[in-house]
């Protein structure tokens, strides 16, 4: 990528990636970019990634995430010139690669968000587009031919029905993949397995692709980091380096900037409200939580229900508890062991009688 001064208009050259809507970011494209676009595009993409991060920490379900990502992309990543859209996509990705390659924590966050983004964007593509992307990824799996399909059709349909889907939504393109390459599909019994091969439906090929995408990006980030420290940072110290460094320390947490109506409390207010208005017992629990990043069951229940009572809604509650508990037990364990209890407080789990 060539970064040019703002006087010159950027020229359009094809990125070289075959498909116009979802690039694979395999290598930095041969493009000229204006300096101001360099930063601007990155900020826009960062808004998308932050939005994804926020959605995940609030425990949004997959279909909610899909809609969220669609909106985020539309709001932030469009461009007045239709042809520029793809360039903005690619450029912003590569700029953020520079920004987030420099430390392990940053790399992990970026990898996780970009992979999620890729997964949902892929899902939103048309089947033809998905097939084309699959071919591009060069995975060594072949679609099964009609003859073979006929022999296993019944079993394949049984699998579809066993996951609660209807047959009409099932497609008839299946790939035969060694079972050990799709562990998540095997573990949840969402594929038919025969003699060591899993029959993966078109719409499940996601898993394979996403894993591949993630591993490619992970390797690329490490390489980028090396290049950055050995060469680029020094070369660009008067131009790009300050921009890159500034971008990475921008606020990464959830967006608390919206204020709520009277009668509810929002996450933004919670600290102040706790000091001023909480009863002593709740203030104590709150303080301990902030200090230890953990509360025992009784404490969680007391404080959790109190917060519900003063108007903290479920999403904010999830974000609040997750932010605290992740520091002690990690985000995954939080989702697995504590999130259920919070949703139960709000009546979203359990018998609901």
């Amino acid at each position, binding site marked *: 990528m060539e970064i040019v001064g703002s006087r010159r208009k950027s020229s359009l050259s094809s990125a070289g990636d075959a498909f116009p809507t979802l690039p694979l970011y395999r290598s930095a494209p041969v493009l000229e970019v204006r300096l101001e676009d360099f930063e601007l595009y990155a900020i826009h993409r960062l808004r998308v990634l932050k939005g994804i991060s926020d959605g995940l920490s609030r425990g949004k379900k997959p279909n909610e995430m899909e809609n969220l990502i669609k909106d985020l992309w539309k709001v932030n990543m469009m461009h007045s010139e239709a042809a520029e859209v793809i360039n903005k996509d690619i450029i912003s990705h590569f700029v953020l690669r520079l920004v987030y390659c420099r430390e392990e924590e940053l790399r992990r966050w970026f990898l996780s968000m970009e992979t999620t983004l890729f997964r949902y964007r892929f899902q939103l593509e048309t089947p033809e587009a998905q097939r084309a992307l699959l071919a591009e990824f060069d995975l060594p799996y072949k679609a099964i031919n009609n003859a073979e399909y006929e022999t296993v059709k019944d079993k394949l349909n049984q699998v579809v029905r*066993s996951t*609660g889907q209807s047959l009409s939504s099932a497609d008839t393109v299946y790939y035969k993949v060694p079972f*050990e390459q799709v*562990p998540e599909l*095997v573990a949840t*019994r969402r594929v038919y*397995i*025969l003699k060591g091969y899993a029959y993966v439906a078109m719409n499940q090929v996601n898993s394979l692709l996403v894993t591949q995408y993630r591993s490619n990006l992970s390797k690329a980030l490490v390489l980028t980091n090396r290049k950055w420290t050995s060469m680029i940072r020094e070369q660009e110290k008067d131009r790009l380096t300050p921009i890159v460094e500034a971008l990475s320390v921008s606020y990464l947490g959830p967006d608390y900037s919206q204020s709520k109506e009277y009668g509810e409390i929002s996450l933004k207010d919670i600290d102040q409200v706790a000091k001023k208005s909480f009863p002593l017992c709740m203030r104590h629990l709150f303080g301990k939580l902030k200090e230890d990043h953990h509360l025992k069951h009784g404490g969680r229940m007391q404080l959790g229900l109190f917060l519900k009572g003063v108007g903290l809604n479920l999403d904010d509650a999830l974000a609040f508890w997750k932010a605290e508990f992740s520091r002690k037990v990690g985000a995954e364990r939080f989702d697995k062991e504590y999130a259920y209890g919070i949703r139960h407080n709000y009546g979203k789990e359990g018998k609901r009688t």
Partner: protein
Amino acid sequence: MVREEAENMNTDMAIDGVETDRKRNHEIPDGFNPNYLKIYYGRFFPYGDMHKWMSYGNDGKHPGCDQSYFGRREFSFSLDKDIYLRYQSFNNAAELENSIKEKCPFKIDIGAVYSVDPANRNAYSGANVFTPVEKELVFDIDISDYDDVRFCCSGADVCSDCWPLMTVAIKVIDTALRDDFGFNHILWVYSGRRGVHCWVCDGKARRLNNEQRSAITEYLHVRKGNENSLKKVSLVGHSLHPFLGRSYAEVLKDFFEGTYISSQNLFSDEERYEKILKMIPDESITSELRGKWQDNKRPRDDINIVRWGHLKHVLQSGKHKVPSIRRCVEEIVLTFTYPRLDLEVSKHMNHLLKAPFCVHPGTGRVCVPIDPEQCEQFDPLTVPTLSKLLEELNMGALGPPGDEELENTSLGKSIKFFRSSFLHPLLKSCKEEIESSYASKIQRSKNPLNW
């Protein structure tokens, strides 16, 4: 030992009735005893077979053989007084044999093949140098995990009414491993008291990582939920996954209806049938059934079969189209009979599992292989025991040292089965694998364009 001395005295003094005296003399008390174990390790434990198995063909002369392979396998010994020795490794069969004979372990466990020999793991510097590289895919099924659904025994006890749970578990899992996952070299072993172990030894299986083992384990795992869930088996969807469907239709349904409900009297006892009724999330159905059964009329046929018939009829009559009822019959059958695996054993490469042909310290029974094709005939109560083998030894049943010396003992059949059904086909396939991978390696290095 008092008993032994008494026997010797009898032999000396016997003049008439030699035969009966001899029989009495050679009776050795059942159970377990460290001295007996020493004799077992001295004359019965199949060191050669174990070494051949654990070498997976690498003890041959082919240039593709890795002579360090056996030495990188971890063994662990449990000695008496709760002493536990981990990270034992041996360079060859003789070292293994000598160490076992010398230490006389109550239990021998087999661990993974590591990147370096476990006994010297601390000699290598650097992190991540000592890591597991290969391990069989293993499963452990223990009948005490079924205590909430068996009423004849509990805990460590096993009888002919509840052992069939293990039999169907073997059938279900064995079929899945062969037909679904394509594995071929599978060894089922009696654990010595109340369960079975399964060793999947294909090269592909040995090289699976933890994530893949976890995936297979979860595929085979059905019961979810804890003490607070009413239903542990929850089948959503309009049909069963082909694997569950096959297991249900080909093995579990017939076992449950034809054998288990009767042998466990699941419906003749109110407390027991209440447990089943709790799994039906529809009050109108359960009260209908409860009413029908409370009149306590004893029918001509087996009451369990009759009442199970009632239940099935009501649930499957199609009147109730509620999704949660749809698969209720299958859920009940699976709750009682579907194999209950110890998940942790299977998920991690470095997990240790008891070696076959050990003697169980609690029962004195030898951990012999089970033929999955004939698992219905397997009876844990007639497995060769330490005392029986010693009796046979005293009566001169052992042949001259060599491959066939145990042929005429009660262990002979097990060893023969181990060799013919498992070891020899496995080694044949290993040999082919070593030879072909070596050949392709040579081919690749010859190709000048490869770098």
